């Protein structure tokens, strides 16, 4: 018996059930009794987003006015009436040199988002051109045994996003490789559990900043001879160490709390130890392990920003920090763009994990 895969099933599987309501809206499949659900699932979220944007706009405007008045006042007090009039005119004209620097409005953020995309298009074109130009030369250099020339221009915003994703996934897999096997051993053996317990309790609450410094101390020494940039390895190791605790705790809990009935089945069937772990204990603790991995991935994404910033490893965290230091006219707007991008990617990562969890484990989990 084959089950047909429909949009509704896929979206529900991924915890994006509200998308199918949108589809029903456009295909006219909405029944009368569905209108209440439609109101709740579509109208209310859209209305709340609009309300949020409205409040944001008003708030930004109010802050803008406070800042503008302060500047005019300051000009009046220090340089007299003429300077104050000039300042007021300058602000009203929209000249970038004297704009108040405060919380950007939604429209400014949107403009910045578009300019970042344009910037990305420019840099991509530049990169492609560079590649074309150096293709022949690089071939010759490789043939001669020299290193090819690589593009060293600044990365675009989109490049930074991918760099961040690379770091977070490297960190996540490091956490997975350490925490899942260790968690299984700890869950299986009460002795190991009491040996590791204090360790887990103490290191779990340690801040990402401290983990970064610890990893920095160690990796810096390990890579002392290497001329390569160690910022990437430092940041992904720190991300992994920060975020692995949820998985470690959940895995050991899942493994040690397997239903007694299943253990009895293993005994009655006389499964060997290896079989018992792989056929009974692991499958039955998969839901908990995945809950842990989901938390780990979201924690990894959250601490990534702070760690990239400290490690000077290129990515969204460094982007935010550089924009803040930059202090250009649209820097604040760019920071807000980065904030939304970080949030949306975090949400998508969570849904990705939920889909994998529903795929592999026998208990179906609904999205929150």
């Amino acid at each position, binding site marked *: 018996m084959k089950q047909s895969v429909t949009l509704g099933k896929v979206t529900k599987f991924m915890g994006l059930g509200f998308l199918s309501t949108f589809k029903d809206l456009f295909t006219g499949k909405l029944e009368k009794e569905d209108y209440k659900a439609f109101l709740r699932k579509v109208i209310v979220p859209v209305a709340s987003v609009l309300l949020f944007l409205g409040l944001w706009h008003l708030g930004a405007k109010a802050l803008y006015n406070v800042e503008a008045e302060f500047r005019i006042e300051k000009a009046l007090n220090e340089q007299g009436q003429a300077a104050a009039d000039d300042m007021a005119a300058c602000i009203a004209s929209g000249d970038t040199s004297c704009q108040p620097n405060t919380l950007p409005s939604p429209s400014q953020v949107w403009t910045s988002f578009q300019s970042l995309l344009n910037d990305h298009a420019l840099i991509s074109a530049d990169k492609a051109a560079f590649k074309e130009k150096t293709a022949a030369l690089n071939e010759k250099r490789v043939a001669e045994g020299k290193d090819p020339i690589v593009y060293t221009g600044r990365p675009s915003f989109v490049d930074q996003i991918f760099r961040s994703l690379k770091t977070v996934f490297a960190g996540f897999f490091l956490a997975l490789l350490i925490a899942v096997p260790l968690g299984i051993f700890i869950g299986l053996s009460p002795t190991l559990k009491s040996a590791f317990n204090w360790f887990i309790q103490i290191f779990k609450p340690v801040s990402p900043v401290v983990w970064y410094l610890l990893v920095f101390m160690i990796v810096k020494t390990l890579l002392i001879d290497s001329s390569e940039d160690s910022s990437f390895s430092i940041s992904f190791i720190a991300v992994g160490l920060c975020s692995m605790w949820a998985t470690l705790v959940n895995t050991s809990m899942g493994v040690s709390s397997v239903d007694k*009935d*299943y253990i*009895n*089945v293993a*005994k*009655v*069937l*006389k*499964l060997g130890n290896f079989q018992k772990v792989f*056929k*009974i204990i692991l*499958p*039955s603790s*998969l839901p908990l392990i995945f809950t842990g991995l989901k938390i780990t991935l979201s924690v990894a994404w959250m601490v990534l920003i702070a760690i990239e910033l400290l490690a000077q490893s290129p990515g969204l965290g460094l982007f935010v920090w550089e924009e803040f230091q930059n202090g250009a006219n649209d820097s604040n707007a760019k920071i807000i763009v980065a904030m939304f991008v970080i949030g949306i990617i975090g949400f998508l990562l969570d849904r990705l994990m939920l889909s994998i969890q529903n795929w592999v*484990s*026998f208990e179906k989990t609904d999205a929150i």
Partner: protein
Amino acid sequence: MAYLELNNVYKTYGTDENATEVLSNINLSIEEGEFVAIVGFTGSGKTTLVNLINGLLEPTKGEVLFKGKPVEGTSHERGVIFQNYSLLPWLTVEQNVLMAVKEAFPKREKAVYKRKAAYYIDMVGLTPAINKLPKELSGGMRQRVAVARALSMKPDMIIMDEPLGALDALTRGTLQDQILNIWGKDKRTALLITNDVDEGIYMADRIIPLRPGPNATLGPEFKIDIERPRDKTAMNDNPNYKKTRNAIIEYLMDIGEERKSQVSEAFLLPDLAPKDFVNQFR
């Protein structure tokens, strides 16, 4: 020598002051090919007794002998059907049975395993549901999977711990017949633990009541002299059936009374009536 023998078996949980003796002085012997039912109240230590026999627990005192040898741990020779099915929820019906087959008959070809599993699944009439997960099955179907899994290991003895306790009366009847059919085919030794006297009389050769715990022990046995195959409706008119049934129920009632009279403290219930919410708003 009996096939299964329990000699002066005691089982205590906890130690020292907290010790509770669940079973005391259990003596039981079952011959090869016999179908014995143990009937008892809930909480009288039936599951403990089962676990002693299948090897999940060890007696505190006394010995459990199977084919003359002391029971040490579980064995494929004694198949167990658990009270709560204990199917692995992440495996399909076929995979659940296959797991048992693979353990009982190591180092065979994959096709052999598949054929064996299919045979036992067919035996309990679940071939159409072979690729379903346990949660997609009804209670009766799940219990049939558990039966197929236990039988697929070709045990010499089947131990059933209230296997039909959670089922409705109709499903119960059908499953009782299925189990009897399977048992009748190759006359394996069977031990059925149940709380239903009628079930015991319908299925077993002998019924032994388990007196309620703590300190549960076995009562006198009742032989069921009704010819097989038994017919449920015809059995109701059988004088033998009536006599045995009355005797067993009387015995169980008596120990029930005994237990009640042992409760020294009487709890006075407060003289309260539920508040009348219906008339309040009229």
